């Protein structure tokens, strides 16, 4: 579903944020991406989502090269940044319709999905209000609904649990699993190692822009815990 091959990103000034990253996410997988602050997680996720330009390496999503066919790649992807800023001059329902229009989602499908996800995240009643009046958590939920109604082949999430209450986190995890059961894939970054350990089929650990370890969660963790593995690789233990 997602093939990252020899991807590197160098910022102006010469700082290499990511160096020669190769990583594959298969359909049906929830893939966790962990690393310390500034390790290159967000840079990688943004490049995959086509939000940020890059020069070295290739990223292919469901057969679409992000560089050569960005629109095709974006059509099958949904991306949520760590702090999604949404148009405050729109009402919640207007934003969802705006996204649905950009992804050519038919009217009956969007009505059904908005109702389903809106009810699940307990946001339907608020959809008539301007986004400017939403709390941080409500914005996060709206952004998640806007991602789920696209029925993406690949869902990319940057720190999705930040700002969500336990109930919404639980609901989100259920929908992530459902998405993967339907053949899609989820690629997300997180600092919540317990969640990553329980939720992910595969985990990659990145340090200073380089992939230091990746593989199935059980193999990677072994008899230890993800926290121990992570701290050991980071050299903090």
């Amino acid at each position: 579903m997602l093939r990252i091959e020899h991807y590197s990103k160098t910022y102006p000034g010469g700082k290499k944020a990511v160096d020669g990253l190769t990583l594959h996410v298969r359909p049906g997988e929830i893939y966790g991406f962990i690393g310390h602050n500034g390790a290159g997680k967000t840079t990688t996720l943004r490049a995959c989502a086509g939000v940020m330009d890059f020069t070295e390496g290739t990223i292919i999503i469901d057969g679409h090269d992000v560089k050569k066919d960005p629109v095709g790649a974006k059509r099958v992807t949904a991306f949520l940044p760590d702090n999604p800023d949404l148009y405050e001059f729109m009402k919640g329902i207007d934003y969802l319709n705006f996204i649905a229009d950009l992804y050519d989602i038919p009217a009956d499908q969007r009505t059904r999905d908005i109702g389903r996800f809106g009810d699940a995240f307990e946001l339907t009643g608020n959809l008539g209000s301007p986004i400017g009046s939403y709390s941080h958590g409500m914005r996060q939920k709206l952004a998640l609904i806007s991602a789920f109604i696209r029925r993406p082949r690949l869902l990319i999430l940057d720190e999705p649990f930040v700002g969500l209450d336990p109930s919404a986190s639980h609901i989100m995890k259920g929908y992530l699993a459902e998405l993967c059961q339907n053949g899609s894939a989820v690629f997300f970054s997180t600092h919540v190692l317990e969640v990553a350990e329980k939720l992910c089929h595969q985990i990659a650990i990145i340090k200073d822009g380089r992939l230091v370890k990746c593989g199935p969660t059980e193999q990677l963790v072994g008899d230890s815990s993800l926290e121990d593995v992570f701290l050991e690789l980071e050299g903090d233990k």
Partner: protein
Amino acid sequence: MKKFFALLKVSVKSMLLSSTNARGSSRKKAATGVGAMLLIAFLGLYLSGLYSSLLMQVLSPIHMEVLVFIFMGMGALVGGLLFTTFAIKGVVFGGKDNDLLLSMPVSSTMLMASRVTAIYLENLLFSFFVLAPAGAVCAFMTQSGVGHSLLFWVRLIIAVFALPLLDTALSVLFGALVAFLSAKVSKGALGQNIVMALYLVAVMWFCFNLNGMIEGLAANAAGVKESLSWAAPMLWMADGVMGDWGKLLAFAACCIVPFALVVYGLGRVYRQAVTAFQARAARNDYKLSAQAASGQKKALLAKEARRFFGTPMYFWNSGIGLMMLVALGVAALVMRDDLRIYLGLLEGLPLMPMAALVMGFCLSMCVIAAPSISLEGKYLWILREAPVGESALLWIKTGFQLLLSVPCTVIAGVCLAAALELSPLEGGLLLALTGLFDLAHAAFGMLVGLAFPKLDAVNETVVVKQSLAVCLGMFVPMAVLGLCALLYWLGGMASAALALALPAALLAVWAAVCATLLAKRGPAMLRAL
């Protein structure tokens, strides 16, 4: 005081950087900031110098120089109000750093005072650029010799420093009203639009009256001064500058007291005001019904329209040119008989080129595309992750400006052609030339928006009123119009056909270059943001 100056420094720096390119190097930022300041300084000095000297020519022989300072003082006051009132909501009450600063161990009065002082410094700049040329004109043109004394300059400096205090106090009060309305009225944008409309009507009324006063100046200067008794502080300022220390002190008190009252009064309730102006609770009574689908382009255009019509700052600053354009056309048609009599007195005037020039001037103020990239700011990720090509995004933004400007151009063009009794050929040429200008202006605006983005602006006010892209998007097209007029004059020396062909060719080349650059370089520029 150390804390106050630290807070003031942050506010001033934020305001100064507002016109610079967010991504540029510090040298580039400084250069663009200085460039924007120079542009404002040039405009202030030029307009004030021009009008002061015109007034002084009329008033100096009858020893009524004092009226120059009354009018320039009013100009500085109204200009400052226009410039800062609608910035108050963002700068004083709606800063992104409110939570951070309000959590710090500084009194809310001090925080409020630091922000209001930053606005005062902005008004001070305006006051200086308007009153200083008036003083210089007085020094050179007055017959009484009052402008030659050192004390005259001391009094003028006192006036320059005092006037912005009054300006700032009024701006903060009006700004607080705007912020209150946008928070409390369910249709906040509508409330702001109504306040803005009333405000502009008041300014227009003032300007029209001012015009009448200036016309009658030579005949009845003393009477005009008498009729201005409602603007007593301005009279005191002018009399003070001309030598009456008592009135100067009364004027200074008139400025200091309201400023102090506003800062102290609002400062005491600043925390409550900021909270109240921000508090907008989401309703919980929405019932989902069947939704309708539309295409990508329609959705993107609707989004641009929602932002434009739902953001009063954007709507009034960028749409005023179009309103003026339509008003001009309709007024010309309604008052065509008076217009023809007036134009009959000025026989031999090239009506069609003049109409095109006036329409172009109004269109120059329609800067919708230039700030649209900066207005995306923190929301840019939404468009970037959307399955829409960069080229399509740019043309939709450019097209939105054209969608508004072209119909207004046609309405105004047809009205003017009818009012001026232009031949069908001349009418067609008028529409073709202004249409070409529309296209070039929109594409140019988009290009400068991409070249000088301000993606980290603290609020939309900064982008719409002060960004470099907006300044360039407005003044470069005006300069192009000037060049067109020059080419018309030069071409007219050879033949009438060449006189029209040269500006038309310039506009065509400008439109072609901008459109080509936007098509070829625009997507890469957007990707690089």
